[in-house]
């Protein structure tokens, strides 16, 4: 009783602090950039927007804030939260702390779909749709291959199947790149594959957000059952859960979340692997607490990384580059810190 209560209290405190941190970071990110804006100006601009007043003298500030920075901040929060939530679900469902949207090939598969969309000059919604189909098809193939290859360490087979099919999707992406228009489409594809929020517009956020929320609904509703699925099918079934249908629904939901943010941000690796790990270290594996913690941590992390991406150099640094530089050492540290359990 005592332990459980203090555990939940600790989690509530953590979540409150994290939420405050995210808001603080978002406010700070709005100030940072080549066009300096003071905290007072941000507050006034938001006040004007809420009151519906237009002030010709402050038009430049309004444009910087509402057309450039705030959509980008919102996109960073959305991408970070969605990838972390998806990563946490995949890790639970596949009973493996090493899987993530990248390792399962979901990101590359979604990438292939989106690259095809860019190649065919389709609108954002269609690119999102193709990204979703590509991501879901890849994760289904990975799962089928892993199921078909029996008699080996299942975790290893799953990860290897993801790597192999990811490589195959990567090869298809290369093929599309060769066929793409070198002046118009190729730079867009290349930049997109490294991940970037540089060209984000408010419209993009409004297209991606509903899909992310739709994907999130089953995760929130079924959050307790994700715990049971992480025990394995037989045990989950004996405890009264139908593992088959639940697993398919949750994988589809996590894939929808991944694909819809990949469609606007490009391939941003490592977030879905590292953030759920850190969240688990903080609040433990109970998905009830893990999901909100991972989402808030992921949102904060992505916002910091994206703010770095647009400020540390004259030109934009691709997000995928930064998350790899940060994520890889952190992951090695996690492995080396020798926790036998995750």
């Amino acid at each position, binding site marked *: 009783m005592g332990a459980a209560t203090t555990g939940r209290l600790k989690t509530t405190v953590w979540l409150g602090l994290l939420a405050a941190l995210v808001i603080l970071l978002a406010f700070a990110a709005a100030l940072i950039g080549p066009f300096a804006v003071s905290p007072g100006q941000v507050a006034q601009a938001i006040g004007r927007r809420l009151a519906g007043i237009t002030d010709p003298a402050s038009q430049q500030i309004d444009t910087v804030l509402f057309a450039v920075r705030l959509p980008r901040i919102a996109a960073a929060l959305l991408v970070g939260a969605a990838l972390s939530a998806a990563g946490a679900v995949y890790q639970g469902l596949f009973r493996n702390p090493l899987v993530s949207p990248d390792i399962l090939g979901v990101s590359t598969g979604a990438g292939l779909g989106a690259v095809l969309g860019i190649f065919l000059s389709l609108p954002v919604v269609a690119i999102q749709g193709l990204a979703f189909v590509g991501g879901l098809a890849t994760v289904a193939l990975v799962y089928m291959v892993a199921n078909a290859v029996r008699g080996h360490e299942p975790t290893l087979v799953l990860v290897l199947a993801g790597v192999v099919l990811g490589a195959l999707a990567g090869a298809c992406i290369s093929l599309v790149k060769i066929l793409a228009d070198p002046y118009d489409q190729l730079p867009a594809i290349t930049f997109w594959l490294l991940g970037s929020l540089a060209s984000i517009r408010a419209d993009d956020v409004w297209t991606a957000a509903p899909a992310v929320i739709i994907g999130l609904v089953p995760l929130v509703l079924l959050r*307790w059952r994700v715990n049971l699925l992480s025990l394995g099918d037989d045990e989950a079934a*004996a405890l009264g859960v139908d593992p088959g249908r639940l697993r398919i629904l949750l994988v589809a939901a996590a894939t929808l979340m991944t694909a819809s943010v990949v469609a606007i941000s490009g391939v941003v690796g490592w977030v879905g692997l590292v953030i759920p790990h850190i969240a688990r270290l903080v609040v433990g594996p109970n998905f009830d607490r893990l999901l909100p913690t991972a989402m808030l941590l992921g949102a904060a992390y992505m916002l910091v990384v994206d703010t770095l991406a647009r400020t540390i150099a004259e030109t934009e640094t691709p997000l995928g580059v930064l998350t790899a530089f940060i994520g890889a050492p952190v992951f090695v540290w996690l492995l080396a810190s020798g926790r036998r359990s995750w």
Partner: protein
Amino acid sequence: MQLSASNLSFGYPGHRVGHDLDLDFGPGEVLCLLGPNGCGKTTLFKTLLGLLPRQGGEIRIGADRLEALRREDIAKRIAYVPQAHDAVFPYSVSDMVLMGRTAHRGLFSSPRSEDRQRVDEALATLGIDDLAGRDYTRISGGQRQLALIARALVQDAPLIVMDEPTASLDFGNQVLVMQQVQRLAATGLGIVLSTHNPDHAFACGTTVLVLAEGTRKALGPPIQVLTGEMLSSIYGVAVSVETLANGSHVCSPQIDAH
């Protein structure tokens, strides 16, 4: 509530493990399953729990056929205690036990505070309340087995299936687990368990089912079924059954026999 199987065939798709099996147990009974490695005990349990489709015959829990019940209804009638395993994620012991309450809550709901109270009671019943906040991955095998039994208790099922509850436990923990089995049966639960130790069947079994090559070799009270002759024939080694001064029975394998 009574679990009964008649004329049961079981196995994996394309591979029959056992056949023509009848068994029946209910409240207050401890049915001990004995048999050599690979005789089909685990497959039988999975079939009784509906985790594997039966290949023939019939299983009834109470008045209903097993296939007519939904997953959560099966879980409310029969609980499963797997062999103490390594969990992938470090759930706290109380969260691990709390998962036993799932069948009693709706699809979208998480356990409530009264469920947590049930968990605390079950942990106290098994004498492991001090483990509530510990990581399930960081307690001993015996403690894990007791935690899994606690999980089965909060499931509120009148019947419990235990797959080798004493496997890989040290001597003290084996005794501890068998004591709990006996106490639970005394409270009116029906328990079926598999074991590799005939002494456990003597200690707390009300009925023994000897399984060999997937079918019933003997069924009855331990003292009648577990003769030296029977044990020798199951395990292929010479065994005699001795009666101690206090009236209890033990098996004595003849290790030095030539």
